[in-house]
């Protein structure tokens, strides 16, 4: 009888294992594996860790049913201590800097998120900035809702808060093609780059907003909560003193990856290509980029400018494809775009997926995101590329810079310091909270990936960051993106022709220089919070006082 029971138990365990092992994890990521685990101790012992799987999905509050993606919740009845034990072991198994985490007793009190906040390195970079600036969590319901919100209510204009304190300064960074912002009114587009917003639905945005109700009006006007919302704005275009009044109606819009392309004379009888590429995130980015590069190839451009100044990253595979299309076959064959460096405990495996840690190649074909799998990508076969940057140029965008440099392509940087995020993570749900902890560092074919203080142009007045060829310059809101007189693009064209940076460097308005897309200005008593757009936005105090 004992034998039969044992066989039965084994069979049930095996069946359960087979059922749960049917494929890769969806949703917030799969389970974790890792070496060095020991049986669960009776209590906390410093430096001794049970396998994270021991504690996974043992929840103080159990969810039932399915999530918005149709996946059944895996929760079982548990305790907050079990949740914290899972965080501790999961950190040990997957966190990149796991040996730099101070191991504290999870039973010592505090919530699960308070405990998670302690599970990170406290080391600093060379510039004195925290080494780990990307450690956070959010409710899984919010995570799932946001990642499934492919389209959202918008005018198709991206706003920058240059000054959060009175007098406030909110400008248009760019507009999406064929969006409400680009509708014609009075013989011109309703909003253009650099347009300053002065009043929203009758409230003075610059000096008003003295009550919460007024701030709400400003917020709902700038960031419409639903499609169909109509907003009246008084605006002033760059270089003018007159004001205009416009009315915008929000539509359901998806982020446009390739905003615009241009083919410009390089001043030496050739052509220079320009692509404003704002996000690697949507699946459409694959096909849009391939289309843009096909145009550049057909035009026979001799140089290429990638405008990544507002590109916070996204799909690494698309970053690889972009790099391949710039560099071509000869420079990329048998070379890797990026390898993932995990903690030492992981060995040769990816500790999150449990699979072999294979590098990201230079993808030469479509992968099926939005371009049919196997479709040959166009190539430009260029030995150098210009990249326009600001501190919003982040992550996968920086991987393009690093990946191309790793195979000997000259990358000329025009603009400001990039954000400095050579790191990635796999968001992981446990018991209703989705956690983000840095799990890998991306390194290029030459083995380099230490740019946590960002890339900076060679002539920048700083001693930190990775200096590469190029010119330091401020973003220029006085000209449209893709206009050859816009500061960063003008500097790139000049460098392409003369090999030198413009003198004096491109200068924007004083407000723009001082604002520099940071909304950390102090003062005032009210806050205007902007909706989250991406990691650089969410890593900032997006408030306007």
């Amino acid at each position, binding site marked *: 009888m004992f034998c*039969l029971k044992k066989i*039965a138990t084994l069979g049930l365990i*095996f069946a359960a294992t087979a*059922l749960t092992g049917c*494929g*890769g994890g969806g*949703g917030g990521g799969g389970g974790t594996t890792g070496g060095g685990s020991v049986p669960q101790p009776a209590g906390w012992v410093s430096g001794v860790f049970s396998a994270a799987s021991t504690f996974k999905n043992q929840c103080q509050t159990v969810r039932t049913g399915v999530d918005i993606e149709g996946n059944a919740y895996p929760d079982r009845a548990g305790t907050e201590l079990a949740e914290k034990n899972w965080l501790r072991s999961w950190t040990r198994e997957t966190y990149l800097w796991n040996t730099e985490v101070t191991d504290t007793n999870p039973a010592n009190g505090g919530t699960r998120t308070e405990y998670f906040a302690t599970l990170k390195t406290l080391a600093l970079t060379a510039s004195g900035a925290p080494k780990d600036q990307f450690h956070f969590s959010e409710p899984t319901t919010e995570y799932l809702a946001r990642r499934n919100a492919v389209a959202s209510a918008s005018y198709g204009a991206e706003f920058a808060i240059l000054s959060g304190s009175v007098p406030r300064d909110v400008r248009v960074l760019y507009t999406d093609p064929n969006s409400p912002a680009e509708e014609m009114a009075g013989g011109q587009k309703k909003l253009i780059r650099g347009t300053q917003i002065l009043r929203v639905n009758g409230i003075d945005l610059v000096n008003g907003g003295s009550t919460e109700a007024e701030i709400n009006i400003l917020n709902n006007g700038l960031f419409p909560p639903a499609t169909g919302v109509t907003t009246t704005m008084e605006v002033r275009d760059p270089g003018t003193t007159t004001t205009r009044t416009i009315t915008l109606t929000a539509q359901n819009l998806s982020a446009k990856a390739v905003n615009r392309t241009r083919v410009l004379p390089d001043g030496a009888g050739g052509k220079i290509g320009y692509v404003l590429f704002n996000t690697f995130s949507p699946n459409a980015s694959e096909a849009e980029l391939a289309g843009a590069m096909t145009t550049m190839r057909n035009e026979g451009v001799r140089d290429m400018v990638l405008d990544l100044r507002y590109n916070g990253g996204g799909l690494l595979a698309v970053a690889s494809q972009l790099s391949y299309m710039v560099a071509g076959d000869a420079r990329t064959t048998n070379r890797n775009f990026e390898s993932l460096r995990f903690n030492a405990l992981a060995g040769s495996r990816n500790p999150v997926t449990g699979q072999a840690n294979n590098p990201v190649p230079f993808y030469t074909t479509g992968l099926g*995101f939005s371009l049919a*799998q196997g479709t040959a990508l166009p190539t430009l076969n260029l030995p150098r590329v210009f990249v326009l940057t600001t501190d919003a140029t982040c992550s996968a965008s920086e991987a393009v810079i690093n990946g191309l440099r790793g195979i000997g392509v000259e990358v000329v940087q025009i603009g400001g310091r990039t954000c400095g995020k050579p790191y*990635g993570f796999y968001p992981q749900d446990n018991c209703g909270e989705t956690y983000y902890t840095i799990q890998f560092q991306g390194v290029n074919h030459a083995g380099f990936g230490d740019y946590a203080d960002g890339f900076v142009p060679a002539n920048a007045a700083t001693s930190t960051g990775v200096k590469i060829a190029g010119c330091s310059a401020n973003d220029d809101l006085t000209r449209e993106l893709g206009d050859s007189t816009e500061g960063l693009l003008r500097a790139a064209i000049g460098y392409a022709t003369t090999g030198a940076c413009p003198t004096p460097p491109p200068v924007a308005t004083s407000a723009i220089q001082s604002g520099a897309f940071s909304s950390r200005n102090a003062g005032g008593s009210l806050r205007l919070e902007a909706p989250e757009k991406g990691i650089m936005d969410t890593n900032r105090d997006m408030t306007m006082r």
Partner: protein
Amino acid sequence: MRLTKLALAALALGLSACQTNAGQSAADQPASVDLSVAETRAALSVALAKALNRGRIELGVTATDQTSTVTVLPPPLGPHETHSTAVPIRFDIIRRKGKCLALRADDGSVHTMSGVRCETVK
């Protein structure tokens, strides 16, 4: 005894729920599906969602509706996922002993496709 039967049944279920004999065999024949047929697309989506242990999936772009290769898109990225390794998962359509199967390219696993019509590629 009932417990043993239950266990054996569960074991069989575990083996057949999503995956047939792993790997490609010499007897396999390349096959194709017609994604312009709504029923085929729907049944394929259900089968591949099951294969991937997801509630639902979205098929990637194919060059033609009649295709011997399909891809499953990764879940969309959240706003914080700026350095994502996600890629579509490729499945090749094959016939084995008259049945339509999906061969997962990255791990070689083979999955049944209940209700999916496929034709041998000649």
